[in-house]
């Protein structure tokens, strides 16, 4: 049973990558010191997003309306808002009390519970077989050949059960989910009830009455092991097979730049669907680059900065009750926004012009730098030649291994590469060390300059970059429905990371009605349609 804690031990932000990295010694040292820090602090910190007041505007508006009545017109923000963050409140409280110790306890507690249950299940058939020999050995009938054959069957079935249970339940978990995995908990309860009922029957009918028929007892133990194997079969179907058949199509959108992908998932609970989506995210989505968003932010700041709204009429009607007061405040807000929109429409806005020319200029600059880069890299690669075995023996002087070869040709392309990365705002994604490593890798594997450049020309998926980019991050699952409930048509939930969030919506795959049409291979016949002209 894996009710592991949500987050891994590494607790630093990806935001550090936003700072500009100078290629050189500093980046290497920074890497080393950072990794040391993160390795030392094993504490788990859970980043809770700041509680955004849903109706915060009314608080401000209420104060504008009447200062004395702010208590009546302000809407109180309680913990149960629309977007209930399932574990957040509880975890925030427990975090202060117990910090990391509490969550580790939970993990070990569930693991020990699972091991105890496993031992109980494994030892029960053996106990059934051994107890009669201990308690009433003289009264017991001797075990004939058929009975001894059953011993072998019990032994092998127990061995298979042991391996199967290890394979299904005790492999290292690849993620920590916020809530208990419902099916596993249900299966554990089922197994426990099952074993208890078998013990009850055994205790009452066999131990109390001290039954002499040993073959019957052995058959009873065999039936227990068979039933456990069938429960394991049920577990395989519930845990593994049920989610394989695609049932829902989910659409995943990144909130910062709108990258969208679609995946097909089976019948999963929301938390396991979220896990599957995160695993796909690392492979499919291009890496999140906050530097590319700065342009649109500056544009929107310019839009807002242009207009300012003043209230010329100072008096507002008295608001004795909440209803009319809120209406008046809402009316004022509407008129303000309408005034702003009208003013913005009338103003001669040339920002679209600027955007167009800026983008065209940027495009041109990128293409020029790219051309220079491609030429520089191709030229650099011509200086390196792979030596054959025989040549190595003949001319032993000045032979380099891949890393030295990479270091030798790197300076000729370094400047062009750095300029290109600066223009496309990717310079923080690649350090000099990683570029040289990649170059050595390409040289070793006989890759062409184009293959070497491909990872720098287009932003690849997150897995392509160095480990600090995609080591286990802290993901928060925000959902209105309970996270252990299954995916349904129209489920919407959010996967929040530090820099961005993924918005996930699910749709049911419709029932597909397929019909068959048979075409006789001999029915493919053609005619020639001409229009000839003859002169007479």
């Amino acid at each position, binding site marked *: 049973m894996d009710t592991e804690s949500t987050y891994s031990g590494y607790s630093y932000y990806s935001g550090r990558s936003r700072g500009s990295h100078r290629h050189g010694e500093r980046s290497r040292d920074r890497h080393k010191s950072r990794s040391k820090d993160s390795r030392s602090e094993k504490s788990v910190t859970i980043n809770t997003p700041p509680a955004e007041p849903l109706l915060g505007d009314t608080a401000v508006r209420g104060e504008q309306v009447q200062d004395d009545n702010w208590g009546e017109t302000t809407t109180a923000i309680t913990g149960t808002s629309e977007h209930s963050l399932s574990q957040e409140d509880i975890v925030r409280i427990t975090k202060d009390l117990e910090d990391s110790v509490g969550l580790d306890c939970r993990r070990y507690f569930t693991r020990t519970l699972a091991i105890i249950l496993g031992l109980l299940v494994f030892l029960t058939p053996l106990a059934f077989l051994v107890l009669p020999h201990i308690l009433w050995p003289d009264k017991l009938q001797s075990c004939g050949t058929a009975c001894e054959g059953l011993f072998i069957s019990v032994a092998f079935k127990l061995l298979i059960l042991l391996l199967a249970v290890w394979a299904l339940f005790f492999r290292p978990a690849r993620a920590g989910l916020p809530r208990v995995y419902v099916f596993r908990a249900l299966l554990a309860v089922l197994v426990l009830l099952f074993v208890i009922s078998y013990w009850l029957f055994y205790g009452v009918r066999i131990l109390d009455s001290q039954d002499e028929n040993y073959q019957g007892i052995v058959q009873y133990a065999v039936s227990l092991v068979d039933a456990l194997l069938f429960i394991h079969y049920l577990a395989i179907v519930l845990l593994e097979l049920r989610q394989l058949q695609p049932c829902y199509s989910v659409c995943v959108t990144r909130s910062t730049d709108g990258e969208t992908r679609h995946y097909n998932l089976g019948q999963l609970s929301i938390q396991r669907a979220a896990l599957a989506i995160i695993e796909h995210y690392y492979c499919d989505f291009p890496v999140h680059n906050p530097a590319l968003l700065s342009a649109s932010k500056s544009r929107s700041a310019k839009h807002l900065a242009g207009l300012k709204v003043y209230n010329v009429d100072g008096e507002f009607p008295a608001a004795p009750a909440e209803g009319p007061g809120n209406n008046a405040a809402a009316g004022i807000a509407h008129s303000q926004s309408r005034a702003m929109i009208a003013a913005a429409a009338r103003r001669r806005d040339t920002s679209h012009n600027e955007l167009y020319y800026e983008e065209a200029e940027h495009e041109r600059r990128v293409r020029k730098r790219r051309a220079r880069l491609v030429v520089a890299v191709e030229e650099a690669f011509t200086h390196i030649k792979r030596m054959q075995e025989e040549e190595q023996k003949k001319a032993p002087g000045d032979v380099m291994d891949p890393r030295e070869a990479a270091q030798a040709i790197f300076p000729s392309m370094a400047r062009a590469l750095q300029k290109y990365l600066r223009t496309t705002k990717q310079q923080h994604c690649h350090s000099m060390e990683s570029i040289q490593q990649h170059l050595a890798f390409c040289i070793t594997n006989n890759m062409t300059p184009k293959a070497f450049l491909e990872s720098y020309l287009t932003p690849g998926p997150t897995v392509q970059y160095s480990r600090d980019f995609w080591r286990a991050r802290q993901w928060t699952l925000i959902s209105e429905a309970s996270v252990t409930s299954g995916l349904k048509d129209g489920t919407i939930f959010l996967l929040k990371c530090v820099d961005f969030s993924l918005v996930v919506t699910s749709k049911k795959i419709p029932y597909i009605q397929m019909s068959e049409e048979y075409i006789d291979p001999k029915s493919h016949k053609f005619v020639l*349609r*001409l*229009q*000839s*002209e*003859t*002169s*007479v």
Partner: protein
Amino acid sequence: MSFVPGQPVTAVVERVEIQKLRQGENLILGFSIGGGIDQDPGQNPFSEDKSDKGIYVTRISPKGPADLAGLKMGDKIMQVNGWDMTMVTHDQARKKLTKKREDVVRLLVTRKSLEEAVKHSKCSYPKH
């Protein structure tokens, strides 16, 4: 000029008489034909009804015998020397036009402007 199965075809026709010109070994008429029941009627640029499989004049050599006789491009040939041309294959039509023993071919041709001229003349005279 469209063909309705079972109904007689009526058309306003013009008589055109062409004298064949001797050019070396051959007798030529100076125009090209297209169409026929074995051809694709949809590709005929001159027919009004694209299911019309009749024989049409597709090209006239300037100053040739046909041009001098008054044959126009786009005319549909209804009869050649008494032989029907509305339901013949392309090759049959060619053969009827290029018989070595005949010096003269008398064609009955029809065109849209003939119909219109007749209609016009009917309307312009008041009833008397």
